[in-house]
Every structure is written in structure tokens, then in C-alpha cells.
């Protein structure tokens, strides 16, 4: 099987995110960069399929020079080769543009399954996988928690509101990985050492033959309203405090 895993380098979920004073973006220094956790599930699943059915795994990432570290991590996990799409014009690009770049680099690679994370934890958009599938004219199986490949088809489990679906699809297809799909492996030291020697092709937009044509733009970044310190709800008795809690959850926190 030939499998492709798309990965994105994102800030660690606990890193402090500071919005630039002019609202044009976030401050990048001091950020701890990691592989998007949902993409990690995709890489892990790709490796498991390779180990079961034979074949190879190629890992692709769009981003500046620093994303090479993330590609190397995937190589250390066991992928065979990497493709790094590095072009300043693609920085901060919208989902369609990113997917275009990915599609251009994938279309000439033989592949049976393309894994993406169901969303990236920085922009929380969740679109690239599906757009990629459309551009390659292949089916998409999104937010999947189990994958089984048999011959030329794949069966997946997809959680929905109130249950889950068992879906079958032809290959090739795009699968976007959800938490619970697997537990990604820890990289072994020999893996890390070998990864340093595995090939990583670097391409820019011109090499891919695409023109960058943005479809959406972030015009402003707004820091969240300062999180008020936690409130201790006081009241004469439980019915009073309970009522106040429910009111706050609905009207202030908007969580129910």
C-alpha cells in the first residue's frame, strides 16, 4: 500500500498564545512547535497499515523551514520519505490554497489512502482534508475512529450525534483522523537517528505549478475577553446557588 500522511506543525496546546498588539497575528517567539495531534493519529494509522499490508508512507507538510522538524518526527516514527512545501506565499494561507498545494504534490504519487488530521489545533478549521479529496476527485471519510482495509476497499467507523456509522469506501480516498483512532507510538532512538538520513524533497509553489489565489483572509486577531477569575457562587441554600449556576452557564458561559 502507498499511504500519504499530511501533517501540520502547530503551537503546543499549552503554549502561551499572545496576539500581536496590532491584531495582525500571534507572536511567534517562545512558541513550542509540535506535530498537530490529530495528524499524529493519521501518521500512526498510516504506519500500522503499512506494517500490516506492506508498502510505504510518505509524509507531507506545508510551512516554513521549521516544519522540517515535524516531518523528521514522522520519519522517526517510521515514514519512508517526506515532502516539504515551503513558500512564503503559502504562509497563513486559507484552506483551499493549502489543499491546492497538497493536491499538486500528491497527484503524481501513487497512493491508496491519504490521512489528514480532522482539524488543526491552531486554526481549528477542519476543511483541508475534504477540499483535498475534492481536488483529487476521491471520496472523503471524515472524523474517523477506526480504519480497516481489505483488498481495494476501506471500512471506517465515524461517530455521529447519538451513535456511530460504519461506512465503506473505495480506494483511493482521504481519511481524516479523530482522537481515539489509535495511540501514536513514541519515537525510538534508532528511529530518530535513521530519520536524519531519510529523503525530504523541498518544493515551492512554482515547482508545484500552482498559483496562489487566496479565497479567505483573517483580517483581525482578537484576544479573548480577559478570563474573569473563577466565581464562587454564594447563596442561602442549594436551590439558590443551583439556580444561579444554571443561569450563569447558560447566559454567561454559553455552554448549555
Amino acid at each position, binding site marked *: 500500500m502507498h499511504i500519504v500522511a499530511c501533517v501540520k506543525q502547530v503551537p503546543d496546546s499549552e503554549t502561551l498564545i499572545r496576539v500581536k498588539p496590532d491584531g495582525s497575528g500571534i507572536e511567534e517567539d517562545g512558541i513550542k512547535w509540535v506535530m498537530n495531534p490529530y495528524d499524529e493519529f493519521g501518521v500512526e494509522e498510516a504506519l500500522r497499515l503499512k506494517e500490516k499490508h506492506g508498502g510505504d508512507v510518505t509524509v507531507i507538510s506545508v510551512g516554513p523551514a521549521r516544519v522540517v522538524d515535524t516531518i523528521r518526527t514522522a520519519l522517526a516514527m517510521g515514514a519512508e520519505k517526506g515532502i516539504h512545501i515551503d513558500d512564503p506565499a503559502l504562509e497563513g494561507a486559507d484552506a483551499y490554497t493549502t489543499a491546492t498545494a497538497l493536491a499538486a504534490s500528491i497527484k503524481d504519487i501513487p497512493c491508496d489512502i491519504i490521512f489528514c488530521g480532522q482539524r488543526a489545533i491552531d486554526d*481549528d478549521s477542519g476543511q483541508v482534508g475534504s477540499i483535498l479529496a475534492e481536488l483529487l476527485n476521491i471520496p*472523503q471519510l471524515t472524523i474517523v475512529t477506526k480504519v480497516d482495509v481489505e483488498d481495494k476497499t476501506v471500512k471506517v467507523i465515524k461517530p455521529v450525534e447519538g451513535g456511530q456509522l460504519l461506512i465503506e469506501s473505495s480506494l483511493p480516498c482521504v481519511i481524516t483522523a479523530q482522537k*481515539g483512532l489509535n495511540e501514536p507510538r513514541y519515537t525510538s532512538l534508532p528511529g530518530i537517528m535513521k530519520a536524519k538520513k531519510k529523503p525530504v524533497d523541498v518544493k515551492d509553489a512554482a515547482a508545484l505549478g500552482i498559483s496562489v489565489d487566496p479565497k479567505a483572509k483573517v483580517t483581525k486577531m482578537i484576544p*479573548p475577553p480577559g478570563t474573569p477569575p473563577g466565581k464562587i457562587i454564594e447563596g442561602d441554600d442549594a*436551590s439558590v446557588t*443551583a439556580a444561579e449556576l444554571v443561569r450563569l452557564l447558560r447566559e454567561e458561559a454559553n455552554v448549555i
Partner: protein
Amino acid sequence: MAKGVWLVAEQRDGAFRKVSFEVAGAARKLADELGEEVCAILLGHDIEGIAGELGKYGVDRVYVADDVAFEQYTTDVYSAAVAKLIKENNPSILLLAASVQGKDLSSRLVGILATGMASDCVDLKIVDGSLVATRPVFAGKCYAEVTILTTPQMASLRPNLFPTVENEKAAEVVKFDPAIDAVELKTKVLEIQKDTSGRVDLTEADIIVSGGRGMKGPENYNVIEELADALGATVGASRAAVDAGWRPQSDQVGQTGKIVSPNLYVACGISGAIQHLAGMSSSKCIVAINKDPDAPILGKADYGIVDDLFKVVPEVTKELKKLLERGE
């Protein structure tokens, strides 16, 4: 010239899902500002009858395609049908709910229509005739304002957020031919497994209610379960409760249990030692009910009640049930 605010309505088992009305309400508001029409697309099987209902919620016209192929959602036919209609009618805005179906469908449409979309929006407004969407990024640590540079300007809306409008109007219902015979079916739903427990897995749950050492025994968890039912939540447990054998290991939230990030986490009788916090600290909203005023979790909670959980929790459940009865 692109015109019209369109939406894709979502139905299940012959009835609209509540999100459809929320999206309709948002569409109505935008359309009023632009002075344009609101059109909805409805796909399904045996659903022609319900189409007009959308008029009550602000929709001017509903385009319906009724076919057995639409009985169960699949990307192939739904995206093809919607795309056809959108290409024919060229609306300026297209909205969907950021539900499971909505996420799958909307993203595919972005690809087919070669446009841009703001996903999981919490606010929409019109600025200089264009849509400006506000959406959370970095797990809600900040917000981004997004403009779409192409048409249709797409946005998916966070469920349970946007208000619905209601009036006495009826919508015009128009049948359209989705031309799905030409669509190659590449995926098939083999089986629908309904969740008998009715509860989502902890790691994917939007709302979690957890009980800890303060529960004092397995038999007392019924107060937690009732609250969970009222909230539509999944039940979790702290390590102390699992160790004591009151709850199964699969319920354990914490560093050595499950790491969860729900929108709402209600911790009952849990002190909040660091290993537990490590498992749920990324919850958007934390509520703590504990009779110990020194419990560390109260320092981390957005809302805390220092009282006996056996008094407070049933009251909260009662209040929630009242809310549901009022239809909110």
C-alpha cells in the same frame, strides 16, 4: 452579481434538527441587512411535507429534493446536489451548521465551489456589504475575524449558539432535480449503530459530569447520572473513585486516565489534585462543587459552589429540567 443568503437545512428521521433553525435565524438577520432573500436547501426522503416549516424561522424559499438516495447522508450525493443548485443560483452567502454532517458537507463544498469558508463561527456580521465572521482559534484562546474573498462566502455556525427567530410566514417550496444519477457513488453507509447508552465517549464529549471521592460510594452516582442526563453529558470519575471500585477504569479522567477537553466539565466531590487537573484543565468551562473550601479545584474552576454536593447537584438537575421544559 452574487445575491441571496442561502443555507443547507439539516433533517434527521423526517424532522428538522434544531441547528437548522439557528442557521436560518442567522441567515435571516444577514439577509435583512443586505436586503436580500433567504433560501434553504433541503435534501432527504419523504421530507417534502416539512419543507414549508422553515418559513416560520425566516426562510423565504425552500428548494427540496426528495429521493431515496438522500435518506442517509453521504458526501457524494449531498455535495453534488447542493453544488449544482449553488452554481445555478449564485448566492452571495452560504451557511451551514457546524454539526457532524455540516462539517463534512461544507468542507467538500468549499472544494467544489473553489471558495473560502469560516468554520465554527460564533458571530456573523455584514461590513461594507461583505460577510465578516468571528470564530474561535487556538481552542478558543483567541478569536479571528475572517472575510471571504470569493462567492459564495461560506460559513459554518457553532451549534447551540445562534438565536432563532419565529414568525407566522410560510416559505415557498420549490422542487429541484438534483441530477444525482450522474454521481458516482464511492462511499456507502453499511450500518447505523445507535448508541444505546446514549452517551458519547469521554474523550469526545462536549459536556462531562464527574464524581470523585466525595461521592462516598458507588450507589450515590445516580445523582451524577441524573445531572448528566439533564445536560446530555457523559459521566466521568476521578482516580479515587476508580481505585475504590465505584466506577470502571474507562471512566477515569486524569493524567493516567483519559485526557478530556469538553466545553463544560462539572466536578462533584473532586478535590482537584494535579493529576486530575492534567486530564481536564483544557475544558472551556469548569464547574466545581465541593464542600471543602480549600479544595484546589475551586481555584481552577470558572464557577464554584462550596456546599454538600448531595444538596446542590439534585437542585442543579431540577433547574436544568425546568429549562428544558421551557423549551430553551
